[in-house]
């Protein structure tokens, strides 16, 4: 018998603190699988965000640092500038990246830092108990938008992938999701493209991953996955927003 699927080496054999059906576990695994596949486990350095994935350094089986809330792209900049031979990625949620850390992500992207950023967008703040995120959808009820998010006064959801794609320094942008197996495999391919881009020294790569938060959406995990397809993808369309440039 041959193994079809087993835990990647780059993921520690440990339980996560994530809620049942949370997308972070899938995204962690995809990154770990690609790190294994590309054979970079011994020269990759990850950055864990502040947010639900704050403990990511407990799960990845390679070097990982924390970063202050929103500052992961700055930390990644420092790492990659100091040690260009390392493969540096930042893992960020929607509050970390699109609210408190908007300046850092915009400027790291615009400088074309040779780093990879994985942006897990679940349209809500999980760690602090389900408050509005910059990517919360209009009408979506959260702890801090009890009547549903209203564009007037609360703004409309920010499309970060489209925002970053316009910078010349950004070489690859794709939005994907983990809503069903086919999409998970596409997300895996995007993760691989982004990390390969860095290995080849081609510049900033960005992968946004729409991910469910069953707990603070108040939905069964299976239903939450359908909600991504029915609601989120309308606002955050899937697909490749910026193709990596051809060789030469």
């Amino acid at each position, binding site marked *: 018998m041959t193994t079809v699927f087993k835990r990647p080496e780059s993921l520690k054999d440990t339980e996560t603190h994530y809620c049942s059906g949370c997308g972070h576990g899938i995204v962690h695994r995809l990154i770990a699988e690609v790190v294994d596949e590309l054979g970079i486990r011994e020269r990759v350095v990850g950055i864990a965000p502040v947010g639900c994935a704050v403990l990511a350094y407990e799960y990845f089986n*390679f070097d990982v640092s924390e970063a202050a809330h929103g500052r992961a792209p700055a930390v990644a900049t420092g790492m990659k500038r100091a040690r260009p031979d390392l493969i540096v990625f930042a893992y960020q949620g929607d509050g970390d990246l699109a609210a408190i850390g908007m300046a850092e992500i915009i400027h790291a992207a615009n400088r074309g830092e040779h780093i990879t950023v994985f942006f897990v967008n679940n349209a809500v703040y999980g760690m602090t108990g389900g408050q509005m995120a910059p990517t919360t959808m209009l009408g979506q009820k959260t702890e801090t938008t009890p009547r549903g998010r209203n564009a007037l006064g609360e703004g409309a959801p920010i499309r970060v992938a489209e925002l970053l794609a316009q910078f010349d320094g950004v070489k690859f942008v794709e939005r994907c999701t983990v809503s069903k197996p086919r999409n998970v495999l596409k997300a895996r391919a995007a993760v691989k493209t982004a990390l390969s881009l860095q290995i080849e020294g081609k510049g900033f790569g960005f992968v946004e991953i729409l991910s469910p938060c069953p707990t603070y959406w108040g939905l069964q995990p299976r239903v939450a996955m359908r909600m991504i397809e029915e609601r989120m993808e309308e606002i955050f369309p899937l697909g490749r927003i910026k193709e990596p440039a051809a060789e030469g």
Partner: protein
Amino acid sequence: MAEKHLMCGNEALSEAAVAAGCRCYFGYPITPQNEVTAYMSRRMPEVGGQFVQSESELAAINMVFGAAVVGARAITTSSSPGISLMQEGISYIAANELPAVIVNVMRGGPGLGNIGPSQADYFQATRGGGHGDYRTIVLTPASVQEIVDHVILAFDLADRYRNPVLILIDGVLGQMVEPVEIAPPPAADLPAKDWALTGCKGRPPNKSRSLILGENELLEMNRRLQEKYRAIEAAEARHEAVDAADAEILLVAYGSPARTCRSVVRKYRERGYRIGLFRPVTAWPFPSAALAECAKGASAVLVVEMSAGQLVEDVRLTLGPAANVLLLGKPGGEVIQAGELEAEIDRIIGLHKMKRR
């Protein structure tokens, strides 16, 4: 012996960082330290280093964090309002026990203040400044040459103790030009950076974190940090004493006011008054034992600082409520002039009916 160069404090500290082997500079322009960003933007590429003009001081200090956590020597510089923005990052650097060098070329505050020279960030520097129980080692050079020496020392101290080191200078020292020698320092005997995130080749993964949730774990971590701080206090308190042994009036000052004090001491000594100067060279750890010794015979201790009175609190803490500790403090980005200091000294001489000897 290295050649003497004419450099302003800001340029000299930049070149000293290069001499210390630092190849990573991250910073955001702010007066009066802009010479550093300009100098480094030119110099870093020349020596194969990295210069990033960051989008903010928040980003700058976190770039330093990133470079430090992968094992590189990194420096950032700013002035008071920018240093306030960096406090979050400095707290994280202290918590992650990373080596980093930060220079504050102090200007008048609070708020946007002005760009005049000031020493009003002493509390912020010596009490941690950000959240949590931590300390940064604080060096307070008083000449351009000492700025150079302190930058080199700062990198070694940072590496030795895995702790942020802050160099506290004022706008005058940053801007003034003096002759300096910058020689590559002899290699210090420093611990290996086996904690750095350099890729987990041939070893278990390293992680760097400060979120510590286990029961009593954070308590233990803090106790360990405090032990480190006690060790730093025991080993690294530095000071300079000028004519302090028999002083009836002991001046206490650091940075550029200490220069004025030194010349005034010389002048009054020539006139026969027993006056001396105690200069803390490290503001943290504060050289308490040495100050207590120097102040033993003094009838008055006059603290001279370009703030409304911050250093004076450490002096009072050291000497106790019974000591006659006075303050000549000038906030607002203004220099303390020799004349003002002499008037205050004359007043003290009169009050205590001090005699020439």
